[in-house]
């Protein structure tokens, strides 16, 4: 019976929120362990690890509250279903990742990898062309013109007017 209830709670839990809570739980333990190993120069309150250790403890406690909140929400959902509404009362949430976001992130990462190897101009033209084509920003001519003119304009503005370092 208890195993069954546990399985139902796991099913009803908001997976993403619970995973975040567990992630924070684990990371807080890691931060605490790293912090207490920092040198303390004689007195613990002079240690550079003091505030990180304190923050780790706060995060640890908050992650437990977060996970407890999700379990409470799951139990409330089970109660609602048991009242006989006949509906599967699950919180619907859009998936975290969708194809557009993943592709955009991949294109951005490739852009930054090639940036130091090709010039800013070349890398930015390629980047803008690739991402605007993927996002269907317009026809080939429009995308090409924007991909060409914007990096040239930015390079001129920032190198000559703002006198900034360009990759």
């Amino acid at each position, binding site marked *: 019976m208890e195993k069954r209830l546990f399985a139902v709670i796991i099913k009803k839990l908001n997976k993403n929120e619970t995973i975040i809570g567990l992630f924070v739980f684990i990371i807080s333990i890691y931060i605490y362990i790293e912090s207490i190993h920092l040198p303390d120069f004689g007195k613990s309150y002079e240690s550079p690890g003091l505030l990180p250790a304190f923050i780790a403890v706060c995060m640890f406690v908050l992650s437990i509250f977060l996970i407890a909140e999700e379990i409470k929400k799951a139990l409330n959902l089970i109660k609602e279903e048991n009242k006989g509404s006949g509906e599967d009362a699950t919180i619907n949430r859009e998936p975290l990742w969708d194809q557009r976001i993943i592709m955009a992130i991949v294109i951005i990462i490739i852009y930054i990898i090639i940036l130091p190897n090709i010039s800013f101009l070349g890398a930015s033209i390629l980047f803008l062309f690739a991402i605007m084509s993927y996002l269907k920003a317009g026809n080939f001519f429009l995308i090409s013109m924007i991909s060409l003119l914007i990096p040239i304009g930015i390079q001129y503005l920032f190198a000559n007017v703002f006198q*900034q370092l360009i990759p």
Partner: protein
Amino acid sequence: MSDLLIQAISQVFVFKVIMLIGIGTVSGILVGAIPGLTVTMATAILVSFTYGWSLLEALALIMGVFVGGVYGGCQSAILVNIPGAPAAISTAFDGFPLSQRGEAGRAIGIATSQSFLGGLIGTGVLAILAPPISHFALRFGSFEYFLLGIFGLTTISRLASKSLIKGLLSACFGIFIAMIGVDPVYGVCGRFTYGNTQLMGGVHFVAALIGLFGLSEVLAQIKLAQFKAIIPKAVGVMPKWSDMKRYFSLTIRSSFIGVFIGALPGVGGDIASLVAYDNAKRTVKNPSRPFGEGAYEGVVAPETANNACVGGALIPALTLGIPGDAVSALVLASFFLHGLRPGPLMMVHNPDSFWAIIIMSIIANVFMLIFGLSLSKVFSYVVAIPKNILMPIIVVLCVIGSYAIEGNIFHVWAMVLLGLIGWIMRRFDYSVGAMVLGIILGPIIDQNLRRSLVLSEGNIIAAIVGRPISLVLFVIIIVLIISEIPIVKLFWYKIFSGLSKKTHS
């Protein structure tokens, strides 16, 4: 003071500085008007671009963008019911119905004139209150600064996040990011650097700001479909004197709401405009139309409050070094990058910078009035730029902005990583603002905490109780945290509802 004012006027009334304020204001209005671009994003990128400039020129551009950006959101809010900035959410409630009735021009005119008045009142309050607050804050020591940092984080965690737990977690994570690098007190020990020389310098806060406010917003917008709207014509924008007289008392009330809310750490124009709108709904007896159906009062109140908020946010930023909102945090960042330390000593060592900001704010408000009224047609076309063209360009600006900090590709990678983290945080209702405030206040809290402990030989609680200002701050923080506990909230609710029943009977 008059000498300082004259000195500040002579520094600011230089062609280049005035031109930069004007350019900043127009850019700010454009950024504010375009849904998907935020003034915080623009300011974060600008802080790195203006690194090599003189402080005055950098501040001129940033103040222009700040003032223009907060106002600019009303353009798209009124024309197409999509607020360009969070501060314009409430403006859309009555602004768009006015636009649907063919009164877009009059609505924009009223929004512009009221934003101008609100901005001037906010600047005036800043000019009047900042010197005595600075003078009072000279009594602050490490104990007080430590507690002020905690107060700032507690406030933003409560107000800027749907859940206190998530708000506090965001703030804690921000403090952790700020701890990465060489220990600033002893300078010999690296924290979470793993021997990596790049990490020894820590995560640069400007790269963090660009990632958290810029790239994360881009990722959030990329998900949305391409936006193309039919933009109504805005004719007859010049405000009438009779309108300004009619709404004068509401303007004054809303301005003070904006200033007060802006002065609270971590809370900005969005909250100020919502509170002012709500106040107008409850207090205006005979609105021009029912609220929500095109009442002019529904445009006056939020627009006045959100621009007054600019002055309010700068009060704690310049006098205590604690930012009132995200953009004032970036104004502070600009000061730090130029080797200045905002806080009570700013009025002692650099009072000219403070008065220069006052004058720049006034000039920016004047430019906002002029450009807002004369260029509304141009802004209406800009509002319609598709996101799938705009967002990639913003990515390029984020990359170049992060690189420009120190000419190091490491900061670009840091920006991307924090941008991803920021996007995930937004997705799950964690406050990016709380994390940013954690990054900015983390070093202040760290150094002052350890200094306080050394001074009190480890007995900090006794030391805090023995200092009146610290004790008051400590009690406020405890009350703020305890008041969010559900049992305590229920207890207070029962007390207040019992009291109100007794009053009515």
